[in-house]
């Protein structure tokens, strides 16, 4: 193929300064890339732009996110996938990379075993003791632990890049809880969907078999060879940068996603708190770092792990993947000794080259480093994140001297590496291809007799053209990683293994209590958001009407409605307490605050944001449609928040749009999640909230006695906010009367928005919740809701309508609503106490507050 004729390669040459994956030094094209480039050319630059947009859109639509810490816009940042993949030919892959990774995984596994076992490597002087003992990742608590699995290192990940000699080099090892597999898989699916054409005539190795083996590895890791082990995925939570992936793998593999407080150690075993009881856990696939795993023996301030877990591991009652303590081999201090270790164990050389490294704990090496500091890259042996790497060529004299001092003070903590210029690969940017540095994350999984390597992996691209460093911490771009073969390959399968041996069909009893809690609160917040939005919209619409007809009763009723807002949303003092007169004179300001002030408890914004939080925690249950609508709500809301002036009409319009989406979303929840998956809890939360709001509305609007005109306006407002005006007209075909309104809103047995119906529904759902066997007694939540239910059964409309002696209020109605409000509140508290395990509040026996870094 001629490069000149290819517009995609315009100006690519001008950037050609070092080794490129596609362009050889004689300016010819690497033949492995030809088919891909042909396919890309056939799509054409204009279409490629469109395709890139489509990929971006798809990633956003599917909610593929990556959170960036300490960045206000960093939460739920969309994952970037470039449409031009990275590729490697099967021959190179199998002959060197795969073999090299297998060798390195086996080697690191033996090192890990040795370090926490015999320590022969230290005793025989193969590695200096400081490389291990001065590394923060060496956890003495893990010393001499025996594991049921045949290998200690079960998952291994290496970052590779192509060096100036044309070979792939190992840049770093990841052994605690490597991330990226889920993103790699999602990249492949996305590219397959958006750009099927670029796969034309190219035979790709697919990762299906690898994920099958991954699942098998988890099953095999279980102690006592259980055939049907209980496996969970432990996440630090929705704020973690790769939370998307935790949830993604949980739903892909079909295992529950749990957080530290879902688990507990009792009777020497690890248990998951579920709605019904404790359920024993056999295998934990963790995405929590080593030191956070057990606040009893490791970091005291951790709430991400489980107290007492280390001892359960020692007693071989649970397997952690990877074992706690494996962070010790994320250790750049080992690099200078790796070849000697390889010789020691295997009597062979390393297959994959590493970057030349000098450990400063040795005199000769230290002298070299201090004399050549400016040309080197310096790291601490136990800190491998970008923030802790010193690129000395960019340091000024002061910084260099400071570093020199630090090296001299604790030389054993430092390693210096040669600076290497790694290869570039074409990246599609603004309509053309440009060369960018790339880094390939590869994955290995332990299996019977060896390690299985994922064909391909995750390729990350430097965020700017000139950038030397590749990092996701800043939210970079990624690429699909192809291993291309000369012979036809299987297509990618969605779900690749036979799940027959794996009892993942769960029932409500096994629902992790933390998931249950989030579902319950999702229901409550969603209910609150909807009722609040409808109520505010009704008031806003009344305000608009008032501008046209200036009747006295109208403004009187408006004032009553303003006040009712404060009651219903519990946002005192608002329109009723201190300063209310000022607010009543300028009601719009208060209403805007009720809509927008996220810090104000009871505001619409606060409800929506609480809902977002519970909902993100449920990510593994989401369907793509749900994400789309959810994202739509958030986008709408953000756009609205950024506006400056709000008119009554605009506010009401935005509520219209959000209400529609909330309802669409509620519909999707009901069809996307099974009752046994936890939808039951969502329903209870939703109905409870709606019933509570219903009671609050009736209490603030129906208890006082008004003159006929005012009464009419109030009843109409109530029905409007309840979206029940049409149903009222259909049912009663009459002028609005208080009696009929109460019959419809409170007493109707068949109308889904009536309080009687809602309470019946809650009662039915609560009866379906699991309760401890043996205790025949009725649970407290059942007692409370039964009482509410009985009250509703025995109501007498005439009695409710009775006026007080001065004719101002209806005391019986008020009493009833007050009692119901309490009962609903107590039901909710009882559900929380019984099912959500708040009694487990973890603290240290002695508050030690050690300065651990």
């Amino acid at each position, binding site marked *: 193929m001629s490069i000149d004729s290819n517009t995609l390669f315009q100006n690519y040459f001008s950037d050609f300064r070092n080794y490129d994956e596609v362009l050889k030094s004689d300016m010819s094209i690497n033949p492995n890339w030809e088919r891909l480039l042909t396919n890309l050319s056939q799509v054409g630059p204009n279409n490629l732009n469109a395709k890139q947009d489509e990929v971006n859109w798809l990633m956003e639509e599917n909610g593929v996110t990556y959170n960036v810490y300490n960045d206000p816009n960093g939460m739920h940042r969309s994952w970037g996938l470039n449409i031009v993949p990275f590729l490697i030919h099967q021959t190179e892959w199998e002959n060197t990379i795969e073999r090299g990774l297998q060798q390195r995984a086996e080697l690191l596994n033996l090192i890990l075993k040795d370090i926490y076992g015999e*320590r022969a490597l*230290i*005793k*025989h*002087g193969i590695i*200096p*003791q*400081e490389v291990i*003992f*001065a590394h923060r990742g060496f956890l*003495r*608590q893990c*010393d001499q632990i025996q594991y049921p699995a045949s290998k200690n290192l079960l998952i291994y990940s290496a970052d590779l890049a192509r060096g100036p000699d044309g070979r792939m080099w190992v840049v770093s090892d990841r052994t605690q809880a490597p991330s990226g597999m889920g993103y790699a898989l999602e990249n492949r699916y996305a590219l397959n969907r958006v750009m099927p054409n670029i796969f034309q005539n190219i035979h790709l190795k697919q990762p299906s078999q690898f994920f099958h083996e991954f699942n098998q590895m988890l099953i095999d890791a279980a102690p006592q060879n259980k055939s049907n082990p209980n496996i969970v995925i432990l996440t630090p939570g929705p704020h973690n940068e790769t939370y998307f992936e935790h949830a993604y793998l949980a739903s892909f593999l079909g295992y529950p996603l749990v957080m530290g407080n879902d688990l507990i*150690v*009792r*009777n*020497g075993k690890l248990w998951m708190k579920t709605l019904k009881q404790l359920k024993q856990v056999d295998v934990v696939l963790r995405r929590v770092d080593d030191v956070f795993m057990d*606040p*009893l*023996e490791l970091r005291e301030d951790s709430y991400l792990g489980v*107290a*007492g877990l280390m*001892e359960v591991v*020692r*007693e071989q009652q649970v397997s952690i993947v990877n074992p706690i303590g494996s962070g010790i081999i994320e250790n750049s201090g080992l690099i200078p000794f790796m070849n000697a270790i390889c010789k020691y164990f295997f009597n062979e050389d390393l297959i994959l080259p590493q970057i030349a490294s000098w450990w400063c704990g040795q005199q000769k090496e230290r002298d070299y480093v201090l004399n050549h500091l400016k040309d080197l890259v310096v790291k601490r042996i136990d800190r491998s994140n970008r923030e802790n790497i010193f690129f000395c060529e960019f340091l000024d004299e002061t910084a260099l001297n400071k570093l020199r001092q630090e090296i001299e003070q*604790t030389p*054993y903590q430092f390693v210096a590496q040669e600076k290497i210029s790694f290869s570039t690969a074409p990246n599609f940017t603004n309509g053309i291809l440009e060369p960018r540095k790339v880094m390939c994350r590869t994955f290995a999984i332990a299996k019977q007799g060896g390690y299985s390597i994922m064909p391909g992996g995750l390729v990350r691209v430097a965020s700017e053209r000139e950038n030397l460093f590749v990092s996701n911490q800043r939210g970079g771009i990624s690429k699909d990683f192809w291993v291309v073969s000369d012979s036809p390959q299987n297509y990618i399968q969605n779900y690749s293994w036979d799940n027959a041996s794996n009892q993942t069909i769960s029932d409500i009893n096994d629902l992790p209590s933390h998931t249950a809690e989030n579902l319950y609160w999702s229901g409550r917040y969603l209910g609150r958001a909807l009722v609040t939005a409808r109520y505010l919209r009704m008031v806003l619409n009344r305000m608009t009407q008032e501008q046209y007809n200036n009747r006295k009763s109208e403004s009187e009723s408006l004032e009553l409605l303003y006040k009712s807002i404060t009651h219903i949303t519990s946002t005192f003092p608002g329109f009723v307490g201190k300063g209310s007169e000022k607010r009543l004179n300028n009601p719009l300001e208060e209403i805007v605050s009720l809509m927008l002030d996220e810090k104000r408890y009871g505001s619409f914004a606060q409800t929506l944001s609480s809902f977002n939080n519970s909902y993100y925690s449920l990510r593994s249950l989401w369907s793509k449609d749900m994400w789309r609508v959810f994202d739509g709500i958030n986008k709408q809301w953000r756009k609205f928040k950024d506006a400056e002036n709000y008119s009554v009409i605009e506010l009401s319009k935005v509520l219209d749009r959000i209400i529609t989406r909330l309802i669409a979303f509620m519909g999707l929840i009901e069809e996307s999640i099974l009752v046994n998956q936890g939808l039951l809890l969502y329903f209870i939360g939703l109905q409870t909230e709606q019933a509570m709001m219903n009671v609050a509305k009736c209490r603030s609007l129906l208890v006082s006695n008004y003159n006929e005109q005012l009464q009419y306006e109030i009843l109409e407002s109530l029905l409007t906010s309840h979206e029940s005006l049409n149903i009222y007209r259909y049912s009663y075909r009459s002028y609005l009367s208080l009696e009929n309104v109460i019959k419809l809103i409170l007493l109707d047995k068949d109308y889904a928005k009536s309080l009687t119906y809602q309470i019946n529904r809650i009662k039915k759902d609560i009866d379906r919740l699991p309760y401890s066997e043996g205790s025949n007694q009725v649970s407290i939540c059942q007692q409370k809701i039964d009482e509410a239910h009985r009250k509703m059964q025995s109501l007498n409309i005439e009695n409710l309508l009775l006026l007080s002696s001065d004719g101002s209020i209806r005391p019986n109605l008020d009493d009833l609503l007050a009692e119901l409000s309490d009962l609903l509140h107590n039901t909710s508290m009882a559900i929380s106490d019984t099912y959500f395990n708040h*009694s*487990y*509040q*973890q*603290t*240290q*026996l*002695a*508050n*030690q*507050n*050690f*300065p*651990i870094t």
Partner: protein
Amino acid sequence: MLYRLSHTTSYKYENGVTFCHNIATLKPKDMLGQKVVNYALEIHPKPTDFSEKTDFFGNTITRFSIQDYHKTLKVIAVSTIEKDHTLMPDIHQSVSGKSITLSEGLQHLKHQDPGLWDVKQFILESVLIANISPEIRAYAEVSFQPNRSIFEAAYELMQRIYTEFEFNPNVTNVATPIHDVILQKKGVCQDFAQIAIACVRSVGLPARYVSGYIETLPPPGKEKLVGADASHAWFSVYIPTFGWVDFDPTNNQIPQNQHIITAYGRDYYDVPPLKGVIYSSGDNKMKVAVDIRPAV
């Protein structure tokens, strides 16, 4: 010398505890010059899980958990210990041990003698003794000089801490950083031990933390009060060609028969007598009573 030792720790929880996991490092070491004749650990309420294991440093670690709701926790370690320090190597009998200088000692340690690996780890930083400050370094260098005997220097360091630091149980707690202690020169045995360890490590020698007990004698003519003793801590220096030598800077002496050793570690963090995670929402109150008396 035969001792009867009891160490009682009690906790009162304001709101009770639904359950707890604990780790105790309370069992005295069985070693040359110190024999554990008998030992028992009593825990109230009775724990559901209980295990005794040896840790990385060779100490006996007891782990237990209590799964029933309780408002008090009582842990009582009782033992009979036979001490005979004459069985241990005596630095005073070792000419080379007493005379080896700092620069000779460092040279000796420099040899990549893999046999020394478990000693040399005590030169490195540890959780509570890290980023040693210039003040500590300067304090150490008053005593430690290249051509001076390590033993002499360590002995003098102990004496200086004894005379220059004020014993005051009200100014520090387990979390007070050594860098604060060196400035205010006040603290308890654990602070003094850690200051000394930081000093020794700052000149490149191995030093370790020793946790244990000391028998205190009542004032002349008075009866010894039950529970008047406390758990104690001191430091130990590795003197190349000889071995570990203990120094007690709180009492200005080289421990002999009055000191009972429970555990070795890099610092307090490795060997707290009792720690745990409880599930509770309220405050708690702790009481410790230690009693050591000659057993007859």
